[in-house]
C-alpha cells in the first residue's frame, strides 16, 4: 500500500492505475497498518497491537475505526504517556491534570482491570471516565470486557448512550458516538439488549486515512541503504 513503487514493468504487465479514493482493505491489512501507525506515533508495541485490534474490530462492523485512530494519533502524537493514560481509582478514572485520555490506553487498562475492584461497574452510578479522545475507539475493549464479565455494558455520554452486548453486538446511538472528537463517558453494567447483533459489513478506508496512517507507519521502518539492501539477499545471481 505504502509507497507504491514506480512500476518498472516487464514487457507484458499492465500499467498501474491511479490510486482510487478509497480502498477495500482486508481485516488483517487494517490491523497491521493501524498497529504500525500507532507504533510510529509513539505507542509501546503492546499497546500498538491493541490499537490495531480496535481499529480492525470497528472496521469489521461498518465503523470507520482506521479514521478514528488516525484522528486520535494526530492529536496524541508526541504527548507523554503519563499525560494521556488513566489514573485508576474506584468510581472515576481521569487523566492526571484533568486532560484527555487515550482511548487505546484506557481501553486496554479497563480490560486489564476488569475483574478487579477498581474497575467495578455498578448499575446505578457506574464508572466515570475521561474525557476520552475519539471515544468510539473504546467499543472493542468494552466488547471484550462484556464477554469476559458475562454482562452487557452501557456507555453514556452527554446526549447519548449505547449498549455493548456480551455477543459484541451494539444497540444505541452509534453514528453519534462515531462523530465525537472527545467526551466524558460513564460505563455501567446492564442487561443484554434485544436486537444487538454483530454486523459484518466491512467499510472501505478512504485514501486520506490510509495516507495519514501510512505516514505514521513509515516511522517504524528504516531508510534503505546500499549495504542494507545487499546484506538481505542471496549471495549470487537469480539468473542461474
Amino acid at each position, binding site marked *: 500500500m*505504502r*509507497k*507504491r*513503487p514506480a*512500476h*518498472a*514493468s*516487464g*514487457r*507484458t*504487465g*499492465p500499467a*498501474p*492505475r491511479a490510486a482510487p479514493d478509497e*480502498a*477495500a*482493505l*482486508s*481485516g*488483517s*491489512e487494517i490491523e497491521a497498518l493501524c498497529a504500525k501507525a500507532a507504533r510510529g506515533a509513539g505507542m*509501546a*508495541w*503492546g*499497546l500498538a*497491537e*491493541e490499537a490495531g485490534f480496535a481499529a480492525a474490530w470497528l472496521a469489521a462492523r461498518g465503523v470507520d475505526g482506521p479514521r478514528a485512530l488516525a484522528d486520535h494519533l494526530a492529536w496524541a502524537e508526541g504527548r507523554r*504517556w503519563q499525560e494521556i*493514560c*488513566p489514573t*485508576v481509582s474506584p468510581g472515576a478514572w481521569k487523566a492526571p491534570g484533568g486532560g484527555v485520555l487515550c482511548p487505546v*490506553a484506557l481501553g*486496554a*487498562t479497563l*480490560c*486489564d*482491570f476488569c475483574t*478487579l475492584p477498581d474497575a467495578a461497574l455498578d448499575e446505578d452510578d457506574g464508572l466515570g471516565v475521561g474525557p476520552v479522545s475519539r471515544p468510539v475507539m473504546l467499543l472493542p475493549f468494552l466488547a*471484550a470486557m462484556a464477554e*469476559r464479565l458475562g454482562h452487557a455494558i452501557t456507555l453514556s455520554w452527554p446526549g447519548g448512550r449505547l449498549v455493548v452486548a456480551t455477543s459484541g453486538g451494539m444497540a444505541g446511538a452509534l453514528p453519534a458516538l462515531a462523530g465525537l472528537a472527545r467526551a466524558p463517558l460513564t460505563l455501567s453494567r446492564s442487561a443484554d439488549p434485544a436486537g444487538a447483533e454483530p454486523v459484518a459489513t466491512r467499510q472501505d478506508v478512504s485514501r486520506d486515512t490510509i495516507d495519514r496512517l501510512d505516514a505514521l507507519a*513509515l*516511522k*517504524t*521502518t*528504516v*531508510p*534503505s*541503504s546500499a*549495504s*542494507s*539492501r545487499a*546484506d*538481505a*539477499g*542471496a*549471495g*549470487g545471481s*537469480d*539468473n*542461474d
Partner: protein
Amino acid sequence: MHMTSPTDHPARATARRPADVVMRLARMGAAHPTRLSFLRVLMRRVQSEGWRFDRPLWEIDAQGVGRAVYRARGPSRTYSLVAFAHDLPDDMRSDRVIATAWDATFTLFDGTPTSADLARLSANVPLQEAGRVSGSELSLSRANRSVRLWQHVVGRLASGRQPDRAEIDAVGYLMRTTAVYGSGKFGAADRVDIAERPELAAPFQVEMLTVWLIRQFTVDMVEHMAAMRGGPGAARLSSENRRRLGVGNSTGLGMAPFIVRHPVLLNNWMMAREEALARVRSLRDASPDAVAALLDAWRAARDNAANWRSEHPLQVEKLRDLRGDLGRIGDRLEEFPGASAAPWDDLWRWGETALTLEGQEQLFALMLEPHGALVDGLSHCMDADETAAFRLDGAMTCGDLRAILETTYDWALAIDFSRPETMARFWYVSEEKLEPRLGDRQSDDGAEREQPLCIARLAHDLHDALSGSAATATVAEFLLRAPEHRFMVRRAQAAARHPYAEVRDNLIDEKMLPIDLMRCKLALFGASHFDPRSDKWVRISLFRGAPYPLDPLDPAP
C-alpha cells in the same frame, strides 16, 4: 488447542520431548518434513476426498505470454489458480521482494472466475504488491524460471529428446516461487473468513494448493514452449522426469519473523509433532507392515539425501552428517525391531546418542511414516485461535508473572546482555518495499526502530522491571506504570500455557542463523532440498516426487 493429555491415549506412556530440547535453533535448523507437514495434509485430503482437477483455460502464445486457469473441485467448493505468463527480460529477474516483474504471476480464486474476474485480475495480479486483489482471492504469488534448467528442458524437448536426468536433479524445479501471500494480504480474503472450511482449516492449505497447481503450470508451460519451438517433433516430459520436478521456492528474511510473531500457532505446530513422536515411541510392538514401511521411508530418505545439493558450507556439513547418519540408521534397522518390549522407544533412544541433530530429526520423520492411523489426526490440532491469547490476565500478580519468567524463560534470563555479542544485531523493516532485514547494532543505522523480535532480551528486561513491584501487585497495576512491557507480558502469559511457543535462543546474538528459523518453518510446510544461498536466504523444493493435479489419482502417500 485440543490435545490428548498424557493419560488418555491408550498407547501413551512416553512423554513429549521438553521444549528445552525441541525449541533450540540448532535443532529447529535440522528439521525435516514429516507426514504432519502441511503439504502432506493437503495431499491426503485431495486423494481421500477424490478432488477433480481440470484446465478450463489455456491462452498462451508462442512467446510464452498469456493466461491459464487450473480448477480444483472438492466435495463442496471449487478453487481456481489463475496464472499469468510473462516474457521477462533476464536483467529484471530477481527473487527479492524488491523485484517488480516476474516470469509468471498467480492468484488462487475462490470458485470459478468469470471473464470479468479474469479481466480484473489481469490488471492487478501481474503487479503483485503494487496491485490489489479482493475477498474473492485467497492467495497472491509469483515465480521465476530456473534459467539454466528451463533452457535445457525446452531445448531437449523441442528436438524430440528427454532432458538430462543429472540436469533435472541438480536444480529440481522449472520455476521457483518468490512469494506466496495469503491471509488478507493485498486485499485477499482474511484467514478468519475461510478458516472454518474443513479443507482450509489446517494451516497454509491455500498456499499449498496454490503451489501444487503452479507445479502443473510449470510443466505445462515448458512443454508448450518446446512444442512452439519444435513443432510436431517435440517431445513431452517422461513421467519419471516430471515426477522428479518440484516447485522451487526462494525466500529471505521475510519468512523468519513469522514463527516469532505467532507463538501460539508455533506451539500448536510443534506440540502436534512432539505428540506424534511420543505416541509412536509408546508403541509396544512393531508389525511387519510397520517395519516394511519404515524401511521404505528410510530408502526414500537415503535417495533424497543423495540428490540434495547445496554449495553453502553450513549445509554441506549438515548433508555430510545426514548421509552418515542415514547409513547408521540403515545398519540399526537391520536388527529392528528385535526382541524389545518397546522397539520404537529403543530406536529413538539409540538415535539420541548415536546420531547428529540432522540424523535425529530425520529419524523423527522416518518413525512417523508407518503410523498414519496413529498420528495423522493430529493435523487437526495445528491451527490456532490467536484471539484467545490476545487478552491479558490483568489480575495475575507480579509474583506469578515473575515465576513464569523464571521457569518458562530461564533460558533467556541466563543470557548476559551486558556482553555486546548477545545483542549484536537488530531486526528491522526496511522502508524499501517493507522488506524485513537484520542489522548490525554497531555499524548500521536504525536500531531505534528495532522490531520486537528480540524476545530473550524483552523477557530479561521485563524480569528486571518486575523487581521494582511488590509480588502481590497486579499485572494491571504494573502495566499502567510500565506500558512498554505490555508486549512481553502478553507473550509470557501465553507461553505459560503453550510450552512450545518460544524459540529458546537469542534471536539477536552475533552467531544466530536466520536460516535455522526458516528451515523449521519450511519443513513444517513440507519443503525438501533446503539449500541456503547465504545465512539469510534459502531455496527449497516442494512437491518433488508427488503426483500432479491433472494426473490420474495415485494411492495416498
